[in-house]
């Protein structure tokens, strides 16, 4: 296979991975919670998009903001009702709680949506440059993922709520003293995490089939991307996502797709030990 094709596949995949991981990274960086619900949020976003498209025929890109908002509401409510109550507890407690919530959500999805793989088929054709091929739906997915990432970056840099989130991440107590309602910020942050997951799911449903069996796979990708890139920053997730996409693409070609995933995890373990702040992470959020 052509080198350019491998690199191109890696970049397309990497943009999607960045989009998957960005909400997870935000929640971990700001709330100090490992959100085991993240994989299910992504699949829920994908299913909502598929079913809305299937029954109404509305173009999925128009559906995407609505799906994302629905996920925001779900995330906000879950954080407000449950996770905020134990948000300062040790990781064992918060991780177990989100895992419990994930089991409930997963079960609801398998009962109401079944585990059949679903995919929005757009049939947009394929671009080709010489012998490098690029399906247009993947290109669209990559573009959407990058746009969403850029939007989140702008929100975090420029808006009032974005600055409040960053302030809470830096120092919870000082932020509270400055008049920021920390619990409110937590709920909004978790909502944004779910929103990004939902949007990523909507994009995924246009590119690959989604099924509830994939929740663990997506969660694993979020782990790896966060550790590679570093926590709590949008550029970190982007770098981590692109790095993982390229690594998996190259490893998939050289040593087989099954081993590519192992390589990603091994790299993550290696980085955890030698550089737990990630490639461009910020120090001090353990």
């Amino acid at each position, binding site marked *: 296979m052509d080198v350019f094709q491998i690199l191109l596949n890696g970049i397309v995949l990497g943009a999607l991975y960045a989009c998957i991981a960005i909400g997870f990274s935000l929640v971990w960086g700001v709330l100090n919670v*490992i959100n085991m619900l993240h994989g299910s949020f992504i699949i829920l976003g994908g299913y909502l998009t598929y079913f809305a498209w299937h029954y109404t025929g509305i173009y999925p890109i128009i559906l995407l903001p609505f799906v994302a908002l629905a996920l925001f509401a779900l995330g906000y409510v879950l954080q407000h009702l*449950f996770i905020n109550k134990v948000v300062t507890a040790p*990781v*064992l407690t918060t991780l177990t709680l989100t895992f419990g919530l994930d089991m409930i959500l997963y079960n609801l999805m398998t009962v109401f949506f079944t585990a059949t793989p679903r995919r929005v088929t757009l049939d947009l054709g394929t671009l080709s440059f010489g012998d490098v091929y690029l399906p247009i739906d993947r290109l669209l997915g990559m573009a959407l993922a990058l746009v969403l990432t850029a939007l989140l970056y702008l929100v975090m840099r420029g808006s009032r709520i974005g600055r409040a989130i960053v302030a809470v991440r830096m120092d919870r107590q000082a932020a509270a003293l400055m008049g920021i309602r920390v619990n409110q910020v937590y709920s909004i942050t978790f909502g944004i995490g779910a929103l990004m997951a939902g949007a990523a799911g909507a994009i995924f449903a246009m590119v690959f089939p989604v099924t509830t069996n994939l929740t663990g796979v997506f969660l694993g990708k979020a782990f790896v991307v966060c550790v590679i890139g570093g926590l709590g920053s949008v550029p970190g997730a982007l770098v981590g996502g692109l790095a993982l996409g390229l690594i998996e693409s190259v490893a998939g070609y050289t040593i087989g797709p099954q081993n590519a995933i192992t390589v990603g995890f091994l790299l993550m373990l290696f980085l955890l030990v030698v550089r737990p702040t990630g490639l461009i992470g910020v120090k001090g959020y353990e």
Partner: protein
Amino acid sequence: MSIAAVVAYTIALALIPQFAGNYETRIAISVAMFSALALSWNFIGGFTGYPSFSTAAFFGLGCYIGALSQRAGLPAEAAWMIATVGVAAFAAALGAIILRLKGHYFAIGSIAIVEVTRLIISSWGSVTGGGDGLNVPLMTGTPDVVAARILYIMLAVMGGAFVATVIVDRSRLGFGLRCIHQNEDAADMVGVDTTRFKIAAFVLSALFCGLVGAVYASWVGYIDPTDSFSILLTVKVPVMALLGGAGTLAGPIVGAGVFVLLEEFFWANFLQWNRAILGIIIVFLIFFLPGGLLKIRYKNLLKKLSANRSADRSNTVSEGEAKG
């Protein structure tokens, strides 16, 4: 007190094959097996306070080492010993690396270990059979005899894990681990060899899992990667320990027993919803039983309940009087 209770409980479980059928024996095996796993987790998660989610990695490796040794022609007992030693060595080597991590990073790292071991086992098809799994030589004897034997072995493992817990609890090691739990830097400062203590706890938490895994493989006769290295198992075991009371002696046994029975009940009655119900139990546990079942002050609870009841009674009496 709790030691006597555990001994009585073990004897009661051991008597089940004499008085009940194969189904009850199977549940008793599950109870003993998960008790051993939860007791193991308690060394690293309960005493030391490290959020380890590696249980399934140790269990799965135990399954595979045991199964491969048995397929190589070794007798079952030898295969179980090899699995125990192999998994302990693996944990010692691994612990030296990942115990440098703390908190969230340790949690993520320990989950990743499960994924990595599962992926390696399933892609190393020439040795492990890959996704097709492995058949393990069946034990000889009628189903009743085999089930009873497995039950006694699992109970022995559980007993061994409990004895180890009691010994650790009363030794310098247990004291040091509790110090690490409270404040690792301070423990280091006053002379606790934190690295060695943590590795010891990690190895203890792996050893019995490896043994349980190997015995499990002999019991079920067939193993595959998804079943042996399941993320569900890796979270279920800490939940059991938390349910009973992490860091206590008998808590993991209580938690495992209650959890297995609840799970069995929900599997039998609400097949479609069992995962959600287990999720609800976890959420309930986190909010209402943060210290586990053993840490509830039952005396106070009884007093409160009886106070409520007498209050209710006086209410109904006064209502009755009003009506009369």
